[in-house]
């Protein structure tokens, strides 16, 4: 499969007054293929947001190379590359510019000089993709958190990006809003094969990814499928992350003396396991 993003030995440190320089990103290499859903997880200060800034060219590495769409990211091609990226940030209220939902989605299209007819078509299309068509003329500020983030995703989709980056896009939402957003992204990925990089500290969300990168102290601590990564549960807990609910409950059940076969990532699997092993007579 085609490679869409790669980092080669990338390091970055923020300028400080102290003599001691702490690297926010320390010699990170990784590769993302077309069509993958990647979750980059880590606690606050682990370097995951710096990584996002390096990928979208808000920062440039002091060492190493960032390649996006097989081109090294530089000041010269930055705008060209960014026009093919969709980015959704943490706080939905900080990214609205339009006075109605459709104006807001059209904003980036207008900036990119898309002709009017095409613009109308794309606005409708992308709002439909996030199931917000009926909110065309609503004011963005009156929407719920989940709805706001869906509009933000529509704004990103309207540019027909090759890569969607979500930087803690669900962390300020209530549980319903979070589920809404995740469901929409899941559907999009299945239907359109969009490549998604989600930066998050929510491991429940990371469970849905194809691969997880676990960040700690500016380095990649682990890479693998959710099954592989969650095998090292204690390690994740020791760096301040929370295990998915079903795994936490499994561990507690074992502490209470109940035997369980294998590991269960979801509640449904765990209920079935309990039924089969202990309650089915």
């Amino acid at each position, binding site marked *: 499969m085609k490679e869409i993003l790669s980092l080669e030995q990338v390091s970055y440190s923020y300028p400080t007054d102290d003599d001691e320089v702490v690297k926010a990103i320390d010699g990170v290499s990784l590769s993302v293929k077309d069509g993958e859903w990647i979750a980059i997880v880590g606690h*606050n200060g682990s370097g995951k947001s710096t990584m996002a800034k390096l990928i979208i060219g808000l920062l440039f590495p002091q060492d190493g190379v960032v390649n996006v769409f097989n081109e090294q990211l530089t000041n010269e091609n930055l705008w060209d590359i960014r026009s093919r990226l969709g980015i959704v940030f943490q706080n939905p209220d900080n990214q609205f510019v339009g006075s109605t939902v459709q104006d807001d989605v059209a904003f980036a299209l207008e900036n990119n000089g898309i002709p009017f007819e095409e613009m109308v078509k794309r606005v409708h299309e992308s709002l439909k993709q996030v199931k917000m068509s009926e909110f065309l003329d609503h004011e963005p500020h009156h929407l719920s*958190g989940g709805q706001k983030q869906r509009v933000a995703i529509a704004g990103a989709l309207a540019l027909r990006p090759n890569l969607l980056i979500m930087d803690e896009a669900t962390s300020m939402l209530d549980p319903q809003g979070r589920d809404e957003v995740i469901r929409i992204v899941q559907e999009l990925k299945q239907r359109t094969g969009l490549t998604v990089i989600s930066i998050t500290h929510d491991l429940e969300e990371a469970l849905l990814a194809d691969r997880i990168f676990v960040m700690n102290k500016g380095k990649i601590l682990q890479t693998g499928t959710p099954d592989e990564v969650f095998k090292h549960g204690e390690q994740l807990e020791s760096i301040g992350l929370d295990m998915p609910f079903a795994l936490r409950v499994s561990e507690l059940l074992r502490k209470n003396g109940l035997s369980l076969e294998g590991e269960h990532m979801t509640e*449904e699997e765990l209920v079935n396991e309990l039924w089969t092993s202990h309650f089915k007579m």
Partner: protein
Amino acid sequence: MDISLQNVGYFYSKDTPFEKRALQGVDATIHSGSYTAIIGHTGSGKSTLLMHLNGLLKPSEGVVRIGDTTISAGTKTKGLKDVRRHVGIVFQFPEHQLFEETVVKDIMFGPMNFGVSEEEAKRRAYELITLLGLPEDVAEKSPFDLSGGQMRRVAIAGVLAFKPSVLILDEPTAGLDPRGRKEIMELFNHLHKKEDLTTILVTHSMEDAARYADNLIIMSNGTSVMTGTPEEVFADEEKLASYRLGLPRSVQFQRDFEKKIGRKLSDIALTEEQLAEFIAKAALEEGADSC
């Protein structure tokens, strides 16, 4: 200090063309020493409600009683300073309110404003730095040189410094990672018990409400729609769902599990620890039955 609300209603921009009703017919009682969680969606009126609990807003309709003070539409703001000394609010993202040159000065600001002497305020500040688990050498640093989690602790210390007997927390863990969230919630739980506080937590985490609170107020569309103990409120899944609210994960798991095994567990599991305990117990009984 007991707090009670009777038929409280509130309009923003009252008597202007922009008048907007935010609260209507809110009835609730918060007993002294209780840990109350106020739960509701964005726009349900939670934040407007909490500003009534220390007189930042006065009700347009109805009456708010905070200890011996009664607040209604006509109450003069002047008499409310005393109430505010007893009721501390930790707002969302409280670190945005830090402003002093050093951490100690920032923590001292609140108590000195309420007339506490400089020495006493300083003593409290150092005490709180330790209590909140901050390294001692932060005292003379600028609060803006600290990490996000540390800044939040300093801001919380600034509220605790004037020794409120009622502590209101507006989504105190927003934006923190799982470990930070847990640490802060455990800290408040510890303070609640140690300082004999009345704690009011505004949250949308059903899990935090179930784990820490003994009294719940569910808000929807500007009014209080359900009140009671967590056991009472979470027993009515359908009613909660009608306000687009879900059960805490442990209770939801318990319901799915009960459906699967075809019988109910005797108690409702408010935490993951309880859930595991109840299921393990049920499995043991099941084994004994089948022998």
